[in-house]
């Protein structure tokens, strides 16, 4: 104990850089690895953002291309494709939040009511599975299952007489929108329960015992004990998800792409990829990407403030 007391004050003093290096040069050596990596692969890309103020031509490079000021942004905001991509992204992200957010909560409540530990465990394992599958696999499986003529879903529904004609689940835009959103729900529902189940285990068992003795029904217990117990978790996750409203997942959109549904599937990630890498409009694609990440960053910062204002932990 004496030795520790002797060390403490010296630690609190401001050590000079020379002393710090002498003592911890091993640690600085270790830090060199990640620092070099982020400098080479992340920070080195930031100067490339100056092309949003240029008419960047791949053949001419950064030095040969003309500076055009805010023209790229004017072009982008006047671009019909951009407004469509932006609208689609916002609408689909909101819908996604609306249908995907409640599901894990409901599932967690149901899992929590289960009394057979073995069954519960197997259920959880199975429900987590979609989270580990790549979008390619999910997309390929969905195409196989939902084909209008030869997909098993349509075959069975026709066999049972529910429908006369195959439903174009993934090849007609309205059906596509619903299928796309439901697949999103399916993919995230099990995994999302983990955090809620953890929050539920933090609720005191005495509350439930007391409620049961008072004769509370299952619904009453869920409504008056479990849900209030996980309220702060719900609020934080909701705010976090609101912060992601500008995002768009390229892989998820790309695997469900086809010409018939392009009107809805055309979202920001697709815009950036197609304008940029496929059509060579580098400046415009970068401007849209920059716009997306700046607005996204702003939303995250606002959400964080909001969560903290509500007395929650926040994210940053």
């Amino acid at each position: 104990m004496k030795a520790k007391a002797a060390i403490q004050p010296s630690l609190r003093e401001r050590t000079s850089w020379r002393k710090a290096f002498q003592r911890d040069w091993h640690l600085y050596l270790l830090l060199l690895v990640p620092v070099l990596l982020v400098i080479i692969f992340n920070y080195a890309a930031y100067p490339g953002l100056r092309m949003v103020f240029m008419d960047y031509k791949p053949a001419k490079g950064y030095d040969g291309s003309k500076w055009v000021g805010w023209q790229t942004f004017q072009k982008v905001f006047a671009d019909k494709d951009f407004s469509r991509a932006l609208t689609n992204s916002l609408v689909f992200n909101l819908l996604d939040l609306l249908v995907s957010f409640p599901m894990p909560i409901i599932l967690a409540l149901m899992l929590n009511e289960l009394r057979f530990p073995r069954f519960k465990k197997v259920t959880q394992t199975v429900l987590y599975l979609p989270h580990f599958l790549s979008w390619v696999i999910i997309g390929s499986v969905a195409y196989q299952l939902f084909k209008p003529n030869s997909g098993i879903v349509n075959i069975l529904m026709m066999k049972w007489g529910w429908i006369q004609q195959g439903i174009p689940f993934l090849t007609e835009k309205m059906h596509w929108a619903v299928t796309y959103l439901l697949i999103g729900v399916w993919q995230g529902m099990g995994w999302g329960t983990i955090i809620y189940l953890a929050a539920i285990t933090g609720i005191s068992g005495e509350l439930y015992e007391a409620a049961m003795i008072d004769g509370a029904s299952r619904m009453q217990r869920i409504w008056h004990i479990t849900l209030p117990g996980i309220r702060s978790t719900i609020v934080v996750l909701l705010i976090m998800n609101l912060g992601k409203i500008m995002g768009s997942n390229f892989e998820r959109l790309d695997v469900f792409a086809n010409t018939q549904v392009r009107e809805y599937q055309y979202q920001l990630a697709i815009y950036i990829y197609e304008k940029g890498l496929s059509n060579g409009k580098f400046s415009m694609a970068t401007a849209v990407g920059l716009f997306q990440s700046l607005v996204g960053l702003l939303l995250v910062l606002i959400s964080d403030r909001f969560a903290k204002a509500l007395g929650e932990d926040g994210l940053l």
Partner: protein
Amino acid sequence: MAKDKTRDIDNSTVNDGSHAIRRFSIGDFLIILILVILCLTCVLPFIHLAAKSVSSNTAVMQRAVVLWPVGLNFDAYASIFQDGSLVRSFLYSVVVVAIFTLLGMITCTCAAYPLSKKRLKGRAFFTVLLMIPMYFNAGLIPSYLLYKDLHLLNNMWVLILPLIYSSYNMLIMKNYFQSTIPDTLEEAAFLDGANNFQILFRIVLPLSLPIIATLSLFYAVGRWNAYADNKYYITSEGLKMIQYKLYQLVASATEAQTATLSEAIEVKSTPEVLQAACIMFATLPIICIYPFLQKYFVKGVMIGAVKG
């Protein structure tokens, strides 16, 4: 309480007092029913595809295959192995994922261990430096041009190097170090004359095996599943990972188009069956190892959720 006692006797399987008044009700039945249906939506698609992949062409065309193979044969898998491109891509992916995971864990430790030390001078600066990339990304085009300048386009390393440092994984590891490894243990080692490396290798890492397992899995699964960077940066067939191959074979092919392996070999199966077999070929490894690894992932999420 007396009321509870009588119910307890009714329900002979429940001995635990806290469950005394919870009998198997219609609510329990409904919950189990819903959960079973949801579980089936996760399992049945794969059983169906597995059955389809080993059924005969005619049975599939007659739409007779539901969950059980009809006219069992392995022609489609034979074609996949004969063609070899998917198999090669599979092995290549395993190699990329292995290198990626190893380098990723080394980088992650190199970042997390120093930053977990409160005494480190400049800790705040390095933390900010290493966190900014998580919140702000230069975007597709500037990255693309940068990798071009670095001669990484169409190179296996473009799938590895830019992604081996992950702020998210670093935070999880840092939190773990700070919360589970007592400072007193390190102080004691320090006083015994151990240096930072010795403390890291002899004390900290051996105590961190659970988090090492979890993060390795995060790295491995993340790399295994992602394909967008293959699409952006890779053009030679030999350097494409299996997910991207599958994407080209199946996901990007609508009903009008068909999946084709190389034209050199004779494919007896119809595109339907062949596609099913390709999907199963890429999915089975994940489904087989997944149940054993699942608990590590859950652990990782829990540690990640606790802020340090």
